[in-house]
């Protein structure tokens, strides 16, 4: 096997998809060619380093399904506490509170921009009675809120930014 042929198999090996029929040839070349061996080992090391970064603990499907039971019609907005240490269940709760915030903000944004559809929840238009839209879109307001407080933007900051026009 040439080094070029080895290259073709290296992606398979790095990706954990090396066919049994190719393994003997691959390992034979690996033992024979120090250059390819060094190349391969360094790339395996890179992949391992990437995988060493801790992933999310919010992976429990059962917990997710349970937490999914949000009422999108009510659109309650909640912030989230930092480092409360209550594990994956509270983490999914925060994630879905974010979803509720997004839904609420979208509903409010549509109403404030005069683009509300007739089937919007009846409780959303009450916001328009006191709101003074400035033409700032929800997206720009969220970006502004995020810039003001990176890592801690919340619905209230976004709504404040949208109403104040910056």
């Amino acid at each position: 096997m040439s080094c070029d042929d080895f290259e073709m198999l290296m992606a398979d090996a790095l990706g954990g998809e090396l066919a049994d029929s190719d393994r003997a040839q691959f390992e034979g070349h690996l033992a024979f060619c120090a250059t390819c061996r060094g190349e391969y080992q360094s790339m395996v090391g890179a992949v391992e380093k990437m995988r060493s970064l801790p992933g999310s603990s919010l992976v429990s499907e059962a917990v997710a399904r349970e937490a999914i039971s949000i009422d999108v019609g009510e659109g309650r907005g909640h912030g989230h506490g930092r480092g409360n240490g209550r594990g994956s269940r509270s983490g999914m709760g925060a994630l879905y509170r974010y979803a509720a915030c997004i839904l609420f903000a979208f509903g409010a944004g549509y109403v404030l921009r005069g683009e509300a559809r007739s089937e919007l929840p009846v409780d959303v238009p009450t916001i328009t009675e006191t709101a003074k839209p400035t033409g700032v879109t929800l997206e720009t307001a969220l970006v502004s809120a995020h810039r003001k407080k990176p890592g801690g933007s919340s619905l209230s900051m976004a709504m404040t930014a949208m109403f104040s026009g910056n």
Partner: protein
Amino acid sequence: MTTPLANFVATRFEQHAQDVYGWAYRLLGRHHDALDVVQDVFLRWSKQCEQEVPSVPRGWLRRVTVNRAVDVVRGRRSDRGLVDDIAEADGAAVADRAIDEEALRADVAAALNRLTDVQRVVLIAKVYDEMTFAQIAAEHGVSMSTAKTHYLRAVRVVRDRLRRWDDRDTTPEIA
């Protein structure tokens, strides 16, 4: 009572929220930053879907999430969050590990920033989602050999960027 838009966003959130959060958290390492990325991504998703629903939602979400997470890492100017994390940690060893992880994330993000969009999503799909080349090729509309080429190039860029970490870990084995 819900709107069609609200229902649509909620449905998509239900299907993909954990994936989006997982990709973001892996690259950012901070719960709140990951949640912010989730919010940004779904706002973009909603806007995108008003025009045209992506044919491969998960692929679209992965690409946008990783791009956004890389932007966040690049934009970090202070380590206040890291300091907070370390303050909560119990002991110097934990603090050292947190600092190492943060530095490694920054290096990985810097490497990802040097990749093309396709190389980036192929790498993430392979390394973190453990998809097969066939699945990746189908998701992104490329051939398997192209997917493999993108993967090799992406790993090489990451490898070059992470060389300074070489003396910190064990000898790799054949996969």
